[in-house]
């Protein structure tokens, strides 16, 4: 896989975006989706984690653990709220800025995985930074299994309020409240229309 040249902030062609020979990834259902009942019926956490459930988990999500490219594929097609391009094309989302801890290799079925995504807004005073970060978090919350924890951040120095935005999007309570705001929810859903 090729890495995107970070120096050029202009728009990339789809063919320039990092990818690997495509495998079909079916969207996964996480918490807070309308498919909750499906997820929960499969994962009744009645007696804590047992080996039986670990096996069920493996079956459900396959033996192939998610890696940075998978995360990239989930969020790079999100549309920018202002431009007719995707976050991948605008290099707001870049593959080298996606990290998973622990890495896919030494991962146990049920253990927590932390996904860190550092976003690079197109300009340092981008007013849409919060909305973009929220969209990335929303997309990942919807699609990743429940043992994934998300840290969506604005890359240091890339934005005048990077800390504030990072903090706001990391605040579970504020994110939950924001997603109940119909106007904002409408904006997010529109940005996610380009994700398939």
């Amino acid at each position: 896989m090729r890495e995107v040249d970070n120096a050029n902030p202009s728009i990339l062609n789809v063919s320039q975006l990092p990818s690997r020979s495509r495998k079909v990834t079916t969207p996964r259902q996480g918490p807070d989706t309308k498919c909750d009942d499906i997820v929960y019926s499969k994962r009744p956490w009645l007696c804590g984690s047992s080996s039986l459930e670990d096996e069920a988990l493996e079956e459900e999500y396959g033996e192939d653990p998610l890696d940075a490219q998978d995360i990239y594929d989930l969020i790079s097609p999100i549309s920018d709220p202002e431009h007719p391009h995707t976050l991948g094309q605008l290099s707001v989302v870049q593959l080298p800025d996606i990290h998973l801890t622990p890495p896919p290799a030494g991962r146990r079925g049920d253990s927590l995985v932390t996904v860190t995504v550092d976003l690079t807004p197109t300009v340092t005073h981008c007013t849409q930074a919060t909305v973009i970060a929220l969209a990335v978090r929303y997309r990942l919350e919807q699609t990743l299994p429940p043992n994934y924890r998300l840290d969506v951040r604005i890359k240091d120095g890339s934005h005048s309020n990077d800390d504030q935005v990072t903090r706001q999007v990391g605040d579970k309570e504020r994110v939950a409240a924001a997603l109940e705001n119909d106007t904002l929810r409408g904006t997010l859903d529109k940005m996610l229309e380009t994700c398939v």
Partner: protein
Amino acid sequence: MSPPPPPPPPSSRSIDLLPLATFTPDLYTRAWQSTPHPFLPLLATTHDKTVTVFSLATFSKHSSLTGGHSRSIRSCAWQPSSSQSSQSLRLVTASFDSTAGIWTYNPSASLEKPITSPSQNNEEEEEEEEEEEWEFSLVLEGHENEVKSLSFSPSGQYLATCSRDKSIWIWEHLSSGGDGDQGEEEEDWETIAVLSEHDGDVKTVSFAPGFKRGKKHDGRRYGSDCLVSGSYDDTVRVWREDQDGEWVCVAVLEAGIGTVWRVEWEGREREGGRYQRFMTAGAEGGVKVWELREEDEDQDEEGGEEGGVSRWGAVPNRMRQSLREDWEVTGELPKVHTREIYSVAWSGESGLVATTGSDGLLVVYEEDEETKEWRVRAKVEGAHGPYEVNHVTWCRRFDKGAEGRQEEMLVTTGDDGVVRAWEVRIGEN
């Protein structure tokens, strides 16, 4: 309640956490918080725009509060009452729709429901819900954004609410005097203070606990109310009512734990009548224990009767400007969690502390009687499977398995929409 028996030295006993029960039904959506009633076998869990009340005797649904709020209910509180009758059963909800809602239970809707003393309700069968049992009787409006948390003063007279609008409001329940009335009279709540000193989202408010009734000695010393708030601005503030009835900030504490998610008061008396401590839990992992530094001459102060006059009643007016309180960190829980700690619960019975958070751990700590160091005594990983655990609380057991003993359990509430009870087995080796 009789005083707890003196615990054996920590080294001589083991503490184990065992799954006890899962409340039914599952709620199928993120559940935020579960609040046990002060003495009845009821537990109120907030999720979505609803509060589901569970029976602690059967671990199953008792009733629900629906239709009052247009956005999610974040937390709720039972209004304290000296009456054991269900006529004064009252729950207040904090909602993302910027309001707080007062709900009253209508006992005539179901006379046979087990809102009675725990000894009588074991044989009673649960019926399917009757939604009309809970009446949404009043909306408290005033906050500009989401209401996040609320807390009653020990007498039930004052209610504090806090919001993303950075303010704390204190409301007074003016008709709280008549416990024996028919519940028909109009709700009368008045705003008595709006506190706007925080620089961010106020995440949590908590009144200091009152002392057990009938102990005037303690009531005299600590009769006045003390409110603590925690915020997105990383600070904790301590608020007191002065003798003119003004609520003032008497301490600003730099917690150093990022967003302060939770403030939890120590729930039992201390040696020498010292003031209760509280713990703060936050985004950056550490739980700190705060203690009021009390001057010796302060001990002889003559202010205040129970529930009435301010603790500073005897202090001349000219001195009050300088009456700041000095709270300092005197302890810290061992760092076990790897992500944000959302909740800390401090048992008023055993003194044990439990924490939960984003990493799904449920941890129990104990303070060493001599060294005053806190030690991890039990730990469960993945308490709600792979999901985050939003809340933990201590709760008296009323189920058959408790066999009438005054036993406590832990109740956790998670993003999986499941509410779980945990037995805390204290063995003596």
